[in-house]
């Protein structure tokens, strides 16, 4: 059996698991949908600001909600791997002619498919609230792909590495707030050029933090796909950022797995 077939079999295993663990399904998608509805309602007035790119705040917020589904959601990869370590099943798989890479990719592929469905649910809710995807179905798919890839190279890699280090599902889950930090320190809720200074923090500082956050450079083209159209320059930058993060995160993860089994 070749490696691709092994990856597909292991992805199938992950997909069978999800409906049997309704807690994972429910708790990974419901908070996102609720946050989308609540924040969309609370901040609806932001869309009335002069120069705001849309008059429907749910439209603006939809790419953020996709990231809220994909980035923290991919953390389940680490949780599941840690559970396999704890049960001994990871070792069991490694006594078959299956590589560590196939075990990890299979899990990742299964989770990515789950997240893609969850992200699509977010977009369906957005459309039910009057939002439109300016670039249609192809743009929507591209948004989901970008959001999922960002999740893999950031929180997916972090959770997988923590799973190797700690072999403890609870430790992996404890890092989930980091994923929200990554998303909130962007123009997730408001255009960065519309952020005003407060007594406590200067808007220039916030703008600098946002510009330095790699997630911002993925969220920006996603929002353009939602609101205006294809900006291939920004889309290219988004994929470059993902590739750069992946170039660091994925070899590091592979190295840690090799070390764990040397």
């Amino acid at each position, binding site marked *: *059996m070749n490696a691709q077939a*092994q990856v597909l*079999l292991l992805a199938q*295993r992950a997909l*069978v*698991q999800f409906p*049997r*663990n309704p807690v994972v399904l429910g708790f990974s998608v419901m908070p996102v949908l609720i946050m989308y509805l609540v924040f969309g309602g609370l901040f609806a007035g932001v869309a009335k600001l002069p120069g705001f790119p849309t008059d429907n705040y749910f439209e603006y917020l939809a790419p953020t909600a996709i990231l809220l589904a994909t980035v923290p959601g991919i953390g389940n990869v680490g949780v599941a791997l840690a559970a*396999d370590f704890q*049960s*001994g*099943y*990871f*070792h*069991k*798989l*490694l*006594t*078959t*002619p*299956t590589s560590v890479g196939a075990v990890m990719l299979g899990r990742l592929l299964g989770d990515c498919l789950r997240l893609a469905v969850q992200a699509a649910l977010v977009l369906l809710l957005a459309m039910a609230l009057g939002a439109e995807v300016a670039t249609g179905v192809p743009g929507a798919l591209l948004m989901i792909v970008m959001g999922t890839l960002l999740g893999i190279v950031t929180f997916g890699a972090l959770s997988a590495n923590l799973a190797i280090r700690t072999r403890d599902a609870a430790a992996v889950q404890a890092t989930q707030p980091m994923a929200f930090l990554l998303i909130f320190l962007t123009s997730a809720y408001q255009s960065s050029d519309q952020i005003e200074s407060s007594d406590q923090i200067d808007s220039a500082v916030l703008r600098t933090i946002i510009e330095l956050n790699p997630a911002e450079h993925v969220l920006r083209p996603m929002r353009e796909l939602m609101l205006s159209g294809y900006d291939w320059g920004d889309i290219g930058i988004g994929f470059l950022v993902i590739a750069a993060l992946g170039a660091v995160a994925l070899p590091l993860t592979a190295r840690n797995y090799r070390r764990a*089994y*040397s």
Partner: protein
Amino acid sequence: MTNSSAFAGTARSTLDELIRPARTQKLESARPLGDAIVLEGLAKTYPDGTAAVRGISLRVAAGESFGILGPNGAGKSTTIGMLGTLVKPTAGRASVAGFDVVAEPREVRRRIGFAVQQAGVDDFATPMELMVLQGRLHGLRKREAAARAGLLLRVIELAEEADRRLATLSGGTKRRVDLAASLMHLPPVLFLDEPTEGLDPRSRSGIWDTLDRLRSRLGVTLVLTTHYMEEGDRLCERIAIIDRGIVVAEGAPAALKATVGRDATLEDVYLHYTGRAFEDTRVAA
């Protein structure tokens, strides 16, 4: 060999059914060498400096049943882990079915079954799903894997539990499923790390009987670790007693007992060669 358990009678025909097609199929075979397993100065020191295994040399003939006995912490699991390609040796070499465990790990894995120390199962799966996946990862077709899983579940008397979630089954039942999953590709070499730990006497006897029959009918080479002296006595043609990462005695159980005295037990053998009582070391470990 005793076939006295109720298990033996019910499982006999199923086991024959399992073995029959296997004999006509092309299975992954060992290279045609005399010894199925060879260890030469095999050692493992973990990164924290713990020398778990300190140079073990052994040979296990094809079709032989061999036991590695010793208390917890003696180095049994590390040794069998190195043979199963789960742990990388830091010195020496080992080959399984004619293939080097470091240079040719994939070839080794094709030819081994390995029941891990904890029941290595996926709690969200059913026994049938787990075993079919195991078989398919070893290259069996879906239908073939399902048929073989069904037979093996009958052999271990779990046919009625085939579609229940593993999370709902007892620890002992999970261990039986793990063992059955290890046999899905009918490997020429079977490694069992503490195979009957936590099982009730009837299940233990059933597992022993199955292993006896598999070995005798398929010529499976069996290597197991255990801290149950009775298990070593019952299942193994030869044993190695390990203490603090080295082999302190090796031979047939009867021959080893004879070196100690009339009516000696394997516990007496352990005491003789290590100067410590086996139970004491278990508590200390």
